[in-house]
């Protein structure tokens, strides 16, 4: 149906979206800014591909264990470090992400170090990527529209008020990190199956920064914004390939401009849904004066 190129872009879009959703839950919904989530992608990629190749595990199990491995590490790491607030966790997360990569690079007997792991079976086909994306996006949208979503947002908006509404904020922060670790881990595992080859260098700080910028670009606190943001950034990167030297310059400038003119991102905190379209149509029809208006804006 699609050519390999379009197919490749759609697969990459699915993978990036899954990772971005994880970061969005943590940064956009729980208010924890991270600059090290590529580390969890790396964990997912390495755990799954090594299990599949060395232990002969079926790839589906490998992907899940990759995600679970990343989740466990996120959980363990989160318990002490998430006591840090604001900028300070962001700074620590740089260290954590880089530390994961350094361990992968130095543990040569298992990971082959910087040479990377070649010959991973190419299990990430278009249907696999799409299926994972749809299932995980569904779960994520369910999650943010549940008691957990409200609890995370409470931690984000007012940490103290949240704990005085009976939320164990420390535990919720760790839970949020663990879930986002799982999403990034699965994304990493899918990336491994897409490229058939992984190297620690793929998961460096630049990758982490990209994940976070996409979430900010889409709108902190909007999951659909995150998906739109990922879509735009991925497609624009592809579009600008022929003027490649200027591509990164444009990318950097766009981030700055977004921060200046629309720091809340494309979608702000709104979700693409019934309410969004209702508001949109209302805005398009300024003459529409609603009577008995319960909602005044």
């Amino acid at each position: 149906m699609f050519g390999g190129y379009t197919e490749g872009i759609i697969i990459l879009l699915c993978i990036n979206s899954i990772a971005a959703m994880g970061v969005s839950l943590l940064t956009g919904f729980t208010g924890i800014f991270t600059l090290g989530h590529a580390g969890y992608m790396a964990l997912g990629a390495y755990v799954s591909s090594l299990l599949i190749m060395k232990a002969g595990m079926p790839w589906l199990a490998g992907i899940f264990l990759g995600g679970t491995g990343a989740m466990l590490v996120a959980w363990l790491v989160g318990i002490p470090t998430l006591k840090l607030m604001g900028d300070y966790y962001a700074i620590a997360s740089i260290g954590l992400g880089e530390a994961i990569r350094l361990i992968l690079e130095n543990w040569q007997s298992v990971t082959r170090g910087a040479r990377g792991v070649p010959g991973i079976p190419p299990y990430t086909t278009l249907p696999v990527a799409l299926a994972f994306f749809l299932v995980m996006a569904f779960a994520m949208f369910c999650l943010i529209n549940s008691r957990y979503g409200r609890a995370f947002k409470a931690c984000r908006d007012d940490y103290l008020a949240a704990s005085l509404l009976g939320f164990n904020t420390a535990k919720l922060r760790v839970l949020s990190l663990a879930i986002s670790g799982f999403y990034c881990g699965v994304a990493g595992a899918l990336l491994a199956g897409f490229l058939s080859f992984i190297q620690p260098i793929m998961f460096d700080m630049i990758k982490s920064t990209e994940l976070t910028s996409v979430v900010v670009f889409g709108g902190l606190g909007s999951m659909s914004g995150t998906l739109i943001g990922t879509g735009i950034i991925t497609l624009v990167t592809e579009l600008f390939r022929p003027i490649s030297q200027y591509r990164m310059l444009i990318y950097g400038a766009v981030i700055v401009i977004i921060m200046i003119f629309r720091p809340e991102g494309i979608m702000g905190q709104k979700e693409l849904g019934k309410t969004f379209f209702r508001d949109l149509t209302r805005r398009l029809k300024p003459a529409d004066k609603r009577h008995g208006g319960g909602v005044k804006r």
Partner: protein
Amino acid sequence: METVLQQVINGLSLGSVYALIAVGYSLVYSILLFSNFAHGGFLVIGGYICYFILRSIGGGIWIASLAALMGAGFCAVLTEKLAYKPIRERTNVTLYLLIASMGMSIVIENIFVIIAGGRFRALPPVIPTQPVSLFGIATTSMFDILSLVTAVVFLSGLQIFLTRTKWGLAIRAAAYDLRVAGLMGVNVNRLISIVFFTAGLLAAVGGIFLSVRYTLYPQLGLITIKAFIAAVIGGLGSLPGAVVGSLILGLAEMLTAGFISSQMRDLVVFLLLVITLLIRPTGLFGKDVKEKV
């Protein structure tokens, strides 16, 4: 014993270069409370200005350095005016500034990729680098001694500026509370410009030394991540903290590489960062801020 001494000297000389950069991070943080990731860019700007004046125009090292210092300072002010000021005036969410600064660092890096190319360049040997033997038990280079001296000169200069001049005092007042300083009649915008100019200037000094010591290329700014970590360990916003943090980091790196394992060097740096943050989230010299309920 000899190797220990040698590694300590190596560590101090590395730390002194980190200190020049770390102080810039801390200075900006103390006023605006955000980590300016574009700081590495100012360093690259300083390095390239110095390079082009030396190579193309053929000026002397003094002219080139002066131009580099002024140029980087000016670019830092420009960056603030173009990218940070509009955000600062709109909102007090420092996260947006942080992200904008990451964007600016990508912009600056890629401007140089386009206009100067990705090639690794080095300044002509304007700063002597011959080996100097210290009492026959350790070796350092002329360059290290010079960089240590320069760091001390500039950092003491900064200290004098901050404690003895009107604007310096205003900066220190603003570090406690920018808004209150504004209410007290300090011209906040000018004050912030001065802070950025100073930060850019110090970054350029670091940039010149780094490009002589190492090499000059658009991604050079990335290595400031270590200086940034040093600033955090010392306590963001604290100038003595930045210096002490840099020296600790320099020593930790060299001693790890020398006596434990050279591959573990960066791991130790990051662990040091995480552990410091866990024990003292505000760093060694940082001030404690408690939220009022």
